C-alpha cells in the first residue's frame, strides 16, 4: 500500500496516524505541506528516521523546492521524487490511501 500524506506533521496528526497504522514494507509519500516533515534536525526527524527502518519513505521534489527546502538539508535516506515517479509509485502499489 502507498500512503499519501499532504499535511505538515507540526500542524496535524495525519502522519502520526498513518505511521501508527501502516504495515511494514508499505510506502509513504510526503507531498504538499507534508514535505516540511523531511527537514533534517527538525523535531519530527527522529520519528521519520524510525519509520524509515520499516517503510519506504519518499518526498515530492517540486513541493520541497516551492517551500525553499534544499535537498541537501533533508533526512538522510529519504528519496526525492518527481511527479512521474509519483505516478509510477501508485502503479507499483495495489492500493493508495490518502490521509486527509
Amino acid at each position, binding site marked *: 500500500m502507498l500512503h*499519501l500524506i*499532504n499535511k505538515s506533521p507540526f500542524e496535524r496528526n495525519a502522519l502520526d496516524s498513518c505511521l501508527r497504522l501502516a504495515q511494514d514494507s508499505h510506502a509513504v509519500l510526503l*507531498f*504538499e*505541506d507534508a514535505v516540511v516533515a523531511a527537514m533534517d534536525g527538525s523535531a519530527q526527524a527522529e520519528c521519520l528516521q524510525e519509520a524509515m527502518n520499516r517503510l519506504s519513505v519518499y518526498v515530492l521534489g*517540486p513541493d520541497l523546492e516551492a517551500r525553499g527546502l534544499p535537498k541537501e538539508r533533508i533526512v538522510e535516506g529519504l528519496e526525492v521524487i518527481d*511527479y*512521474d515517479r*509519483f*505516478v*509510477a509509485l*501508485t*502503479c507499483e502499489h495495489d*492500493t*493508495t490511501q*490518502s490521509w*486527509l
Partner: protein
Amino acid sequence: MKFGIVVNEGPYQHQASDSAYQFARAALAAGHEIFRVFFYHDGVNNGTRLTVPPQDDRNIVERWSELATENELDLVLCVAAAQRRGLLDEGEAQRNGKDADNIAPGFRISGLGQLIEAAVQSDRLVTFGD
C-alpha cells in the same frame, strides 16, 4: 493502468486541485488512462466557468477544461455536493428554478454512483484533498 482521481477541495484555497492536475498530466504522459476525475465536497467548485484569476497566476478551471478536451477526460461534479454549493448546469438550473448556471466546459454533473463506479472500474483510485 486505468486511474480514477478524486478531488475534494476547491480551486486556489488548497493545493489539492493543483496536485491532482499535475498527477493527471504525468499519468497521461506516461501513457496511462484516466477513467474519470470525480470532484467531491468543495472540489465541485473547480467546475465553475465564472472564475477570473489574476493574470499572473494559473487558471485552474480552464486548465482542467483543456486537459479534458485534449484527452477526452470525464470530469464529473457530484450533484449533491454541487447543489449545496451553487454549481449548476443548464438542466439543474431549470429544474431548480435558478436564473443562471455556472458549469465550465468539459465538466458534467452526475451522482455519487459515478465515484463508486470509478473506484470499481479503475485499477487505482487516488484522492487529493485537505
